[in-house]
């Protein structure tokens, strides 16, 4: 019941508002009660309000305000990218992005695929019902 994802140095968070929307960042320092210093391998270190962050389960081992090189090394050893993409939250985000990027032809293909899948499921279900009348 109590909290498990703490704001701490090394906590990986997702930016959920603003210019950096959707980026995975690491909290490298806490500025005051409302703001943190965040960093990511491909962005300039900067401050951000906690309200713009969603904390994740992932935490890496870094000293306070590490050099970019140290940060990148730590993220490699902790394998943040893979852990994120395998987690259910990460997978959902990837699917959302893919869906948003479909063009009309892709959406047509999705529709056809859905119909085909639904048909197969109903056929199988009907067969099972016939075999086990219950």
């Amino acid at each position, binding site marked *: *019941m*109590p*909290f498990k994802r703490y704001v701490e140095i090394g906590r990986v968070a997702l930016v959920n508002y603003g210019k950096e929307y959707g980026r995975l960042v690491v909290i490298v320092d806490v500025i005051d*009660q409302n703001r943190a210093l965040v960093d990511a391998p491909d962005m300039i270190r900067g401050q951000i309000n906690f309200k713009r962050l969603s904390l994740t389960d992932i935490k890496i081992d870094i000293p306070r305000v590490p050099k970019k090189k140290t940060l990148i090394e730590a993220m490699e050893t902790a394998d943040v990218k893979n852990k994120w993409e395998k987690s259910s939250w990460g997978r959902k985000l990837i699917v959302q992005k893919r869906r948003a990027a479909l063009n009309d032809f892709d959406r047509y293909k999705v529709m056809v695929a859905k119909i085909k899948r639904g048909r197969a499921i109903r056929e199988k279900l009907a067969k099972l019902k016939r075999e086990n009348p219950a």
Partner: protein
Amino acid sequence: MKTILSSQTMDIPEGITVKVDAKIVEVEGPRGKLTRNFKHLNLDFALLDGGKKLKVEAWFGSRKTMAAIRTAISHIQNLITGVTKGYRYKMRLVYAHFPINASIPNNSDSIEIRNFLGEKKVRKVDMLEGVKISRSEKVKDELILDGNDVELVSRSAALINQKCHVKNKDIRKFLDGIYVSEKGTIAEEAYSRYLAVETLIFFLVLSEAEDDSPGDVEEECLAGDESADVVPDREGPDDAQAASRQPHQYVTPLVTGLPGRSSSEWEEDGESQGDGGIAGN
């Protein structure tokens, strides 16, 4: 200012199970089960250490929410003592002229009060759930309220007290009423009785040990020293002599129910203490 995190931990003694879910705390022990709802507080309750410790946390709390942490813990501690030792509140019937007539029906869950200040009105007070009331056998004019939940027991006592308020009179002079004389636990009585027995056994052993000569010399000294300066020993010289003659037949007088500290002070059936000085009598 908001303090990021403040917390307090309490130990849960052996034999008690505590369950906490969504700010409802359930405590179970030898005397039964008690529940308490803390949903009005903004606190996190967590059981640690496999049920041996309870931690209460307040995140970003103001001064008042942080104060609530310790009160929550105190409430839970009261639940725990209620469920192990129980609560016993004793009340005395105090009257100057009209004896208060208190009768308790068989099921012990209500009390009827008659003749309070000579009034014809009969006051009936129902005890709250889980609270039993009885008259004390050994002490005159005493009521005993027993229960597990301290809130219910003390509130029942308050209800009885409030039914017997004096109206339209100078309450400094008309001191009649039913007052709470002692707030304690039920297990403590048993413990004090146990202590009394232990001290008796201790004296017995001592008196038997005084059979040898050093003890006799002591007695002679004491016997010869007839002056009033002799500080009376724990065992008076008579007891020791009697005991040394017949150690095994020393019959100890049974100490009847070690009275609570307060009952001797309440022994009055006439003028109460505050009588002389007030109203220039």
